[in-house]
C-alpha cells in the first residue's frame, strides 16, 4: 500500500522534478570547495555549492569531471570565467579597480585611524594650552590661602 502511494506521488512529481533519467554524479569535498567560490548564474546571490538550481548541479558535475581529468583548480575556474565572465567569481581578481575592494580594510583603518589621530592631536594641544605651569599653580595656591 505504501509502495503504491509512493509510486503515485512520484508520478505526480515527475513533472515537477527536473527531468533526469540518471542519478546525479558522486561529488567529492573538493568539488564543493571549488563550487563555493563560484556564483550560481541564475540565483539571487547563492554560490554554486549552495544552490540546487539545475545550472549549479550541472556546474558541480562539470567540476567533478574536470577534476577527474586532472585539471587544476585554477584551470577549472578559468573555464567558468571564459563561459560566464569574471562575474562568476565570488572573489574578484586582484587587478584594476578591484584593488579598491581588496585594500578596503587598509583604507578603512588608515582613513578612520587618521581621523582619530587628528582628533587626539587637537584634544592634546588644547590640554597643553589650558594646562597651568608650576609657577601659575603656586601663585593660585597662594591667592587661595590669602583669601
Amino acid at each position, binding site marked *: 500500500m505504501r509502495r503504491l502511494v*509512493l509510486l503515485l506521488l512520484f508520478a505526480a*512529481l515527475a513533472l515537477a522534478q527536473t527531468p*533526469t533519467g540518471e542519478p546525479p554524479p558522486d*561529488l567529492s569535498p573538493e568539488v564543493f570547495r571549488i563550487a563555493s567560490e563560484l556564483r550560481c548564474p541564475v540565483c539571487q546571490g547563492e554560490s554554486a555549492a549552495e544552490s540546487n538550481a539545475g545550472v549549479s548541479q550541472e556546474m558541480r558535475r562539470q567540476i567533478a569531471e574536470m577534476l577527474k581529468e586532472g585539471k587544476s583548480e585554477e584551470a577549472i575556474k578559468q573555464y567558468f570565467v571564459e563561459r560566464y565572465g569574471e562575474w562568476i567569481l565570488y572573489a574578484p581578481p586582484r587587478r584594476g579597480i578591484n584593488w579598491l575592494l*581588496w585594500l578596503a580594510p587598509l583604507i578603512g583603518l588608515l582613513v578612520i585611524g587618521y581621523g582619530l589621530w587628528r582628533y587626539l592631536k587637537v584634544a592634546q594641544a588644547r590640554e597643553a594650552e589650558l594646562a597651568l605651569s608650576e609657577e601659575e599653580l603656586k601663585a593660585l595656591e597662594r591667592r587661595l590661602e590669602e583669601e
Partner: protein
Amino acid sequence: MTPGLLGNVALVLGFVFTALGLLLSLFAWWAKDARYVEAAKRAAWLSFLAALAAFFALEWALLTDDFSIAYTAKNHSTKSPTWVKFATLWAALEGSILLWATFQALYTVLAARKLKDYWMAPAVLGTLLGIELFFFGVMLFVANPFAPVPHPPSEGPGPNPLLQNHWMMAVHPVLMYLGFVGISVPFAYAVAAMLARRYQSWVAETRWWTLVAFGFLTAAIFAGGWWSYEVLGWGGYWAWDPVENASFIPWLLLAAFLHTALVQERRGMFKTWNFAYITLAYAATVFGTFLTRSGVIQSVHAFVEGAVGPVFLGFLLAVLLVGFSLLSRVASEVRDVGGLNLVSREGLLLGASLVFATMAFVVVLGTLFPLIVEAATGDKVSVGSPFFDAVFAPLGAVLLLLMGAGPLFPWGGIDAYAARALSLMASALALATAVALLFGAGFGVALGVGLFAYNLTALLAQAGRGVSAWRKKGRGALAAVLAYLTRARRQVGAQLVHFGVALAALAIVFSQAYRVDAQKTLEIGEQARIGGLEVRLLDLRAKDEGFRFAVIADVEVEGVGVMHPRLHYYPTMNSPLAAPSVHYGLYNDDYLILQAFDTEEGRWATIRLVRTPLVLWLWIAGGIILFGILYIVFPGFSWGRKRAAEVAA
C-alpha cells in the same frame, strides 16, 4: 466591522495622533513649556494603541481567513498551520512595515516614560514621533496592509515556502525589527543632545537602550544563522548575502559606538565620534531595508519588492541629513580636551572601535561594490564569501587581540597586574598556537586556537583581579567571588560577552576550515562511505502533509543512527525545497540533505553529507553573548541615570 475597516481606521488615527504628538513636541521645544511634552506623551500613547489595533486587525484577517484584503489574498493560505498564519503578518512587505511601526510606537511610549530632562524631552520625543510618522505615512500612502481586493478569492498561495519551512520564521524577523527599532532611541537622544547642546550625558542615559538594541540584533543575527543552517540546505550559517550584510552593518557600528561611548562616559572624549557612530548605525538599519525592498541588489532574502524602495531611500537621506547637519554644528562647538595614552583601557577601546568601524566600511563597500563597478566601468563583478572571509580573518584576529587585553588595563595607563597578565596571555597564545601547529593544523586554525587560549587566560586574569580586590577588603574566598559576580555586573557581563565572541571565533575558524561536504547516490539497502562516514540508505517514502508533500529518505549514519532528510513539495513552487536532517554533536555536526531521488521507481536517492566541526559551539557562544548582555541590562532602566550622576559628580 471588518478587519479591513478596523485596520484602515486604526492607521488613520495612528497617523493623526502621531502627527499631533510631533506638533506638540515641536511646540514644547519652541515655547519651552513642559506641559506640551506631557500632552505629546499622551498622543504617543494613543498612536501606540492605534498601531496595536492595526496589528490586531491584520492578525484578525489572517486568523479568520479574510481574503477581502489584498495582503491576505497574496500571502495567506487557509491550509497553513495556525502559527504560520499568525507569522504571515511579517512574511511580506506591507505587514513587515506594520510590525515595524508597532514596535516603533512601543519603543516611543517606553522611552517617553523615562524622559525626565525637560531640555531634551521634546526633541527626543519629537524625533521618535517623526520616525513613527514616516512609518504610518508609508502604510497609508505607499504600502497599505489593508488595501482591499475587488473580488476576494477563496484561497491564497500562502507565504513563501522558504519562510514557512521552519518555526524560526516566527522569531527571527521579530528579533531583527526589535533590534532595528531599538537603535532609534539612542539616535533620538543623540539628535536631542545635539539640538539642546547637552553633549555629554546622553551617552550614559542611553546605554541601557543601546545594549537592548544590541542584544536583539545579536540574537537576530545568531537566530538567522541557525535558521539558514537548518533550512537552506547547504550546511552553512552565513553566506555574506547582501541582506545578511545589511543586518551586520548596524551591529558593527553599534559595537563601535558602545566602545567609544565608554571613553566618553569616563573621560568626556569622542563626543563628535559618538554622534557620528549612532547616526550611521541608525541610518544603516534604514539602508538595510532599502537594500532588501528596492531590488537594487540580488539576494536570497528579496522576498518582496515594491514601491517602498525610493521612499526608504528618501528616509535614509533625511536621517543622514539631520544627523550630519547637526553634527557639523557639534564639531564646531565641542572642544574635547585631553591627552590619551594609547597603552591604556581607553586606548584599546579606541582600537576596538576603529576595527569595528573598518569592518563596517568593508561590508558596506563589499556589498555595494558590484553596483559601483557597474556604474563606473560597465563591468559586472561579484563579491561574496571568499572575499569577505579573506578580509575578515586578519581584522578579526586584531579584534581578538584587543578584546582580551582591553578590560585588563586600568584607565589611563598600564599597571603591574596587567603587565603580568599580558605576558601570561602572550605565552598562552604562543603555546596554544605551537601545539595546534604540531597537531597538523594550518596556520590560520592554529592562530585561532592560540587566540582562544589567549582570551581564556585574559578572562581568568580579569576575574582574578576582580575577586582579589574584594578579598583585600576582607571577604572570604567564596564571598569575594560572589561579591565580584553581583557587584560588578557591567564588568562581568562584558567579560561574558567577550568570552562568547572568542568562542564564536573558534567555532567559526574550525567550521570553516574543516568542513567536509560530499555527495553520493545510493540504492535502497546500499551502504557506502560518504565524507569519511559509513552511510546506508534504508528506505525512501512519501507523505502527504496537507499543505505540502514530503519525500523522506531514511538514512543510517555510522555512529549517529537513522536520520531523515526530506524534500518538500509546495503547490506554489515548481522545484522542491530540501529540508536537511541535522545531528548536533559536541565535536561534529552531521548534516544530511536529500539531493535527488529516483522519481520513476523510487530505487535510489542522492545523499549529500556535510560534516562540520564545532558548529554547535557557535550557537552556544551566541547564548553566552546574549546572557552577558542580559546580565548587564537586567537590573533595569534606572542605573543609566545613576551612573550618569556618579560620573558627573
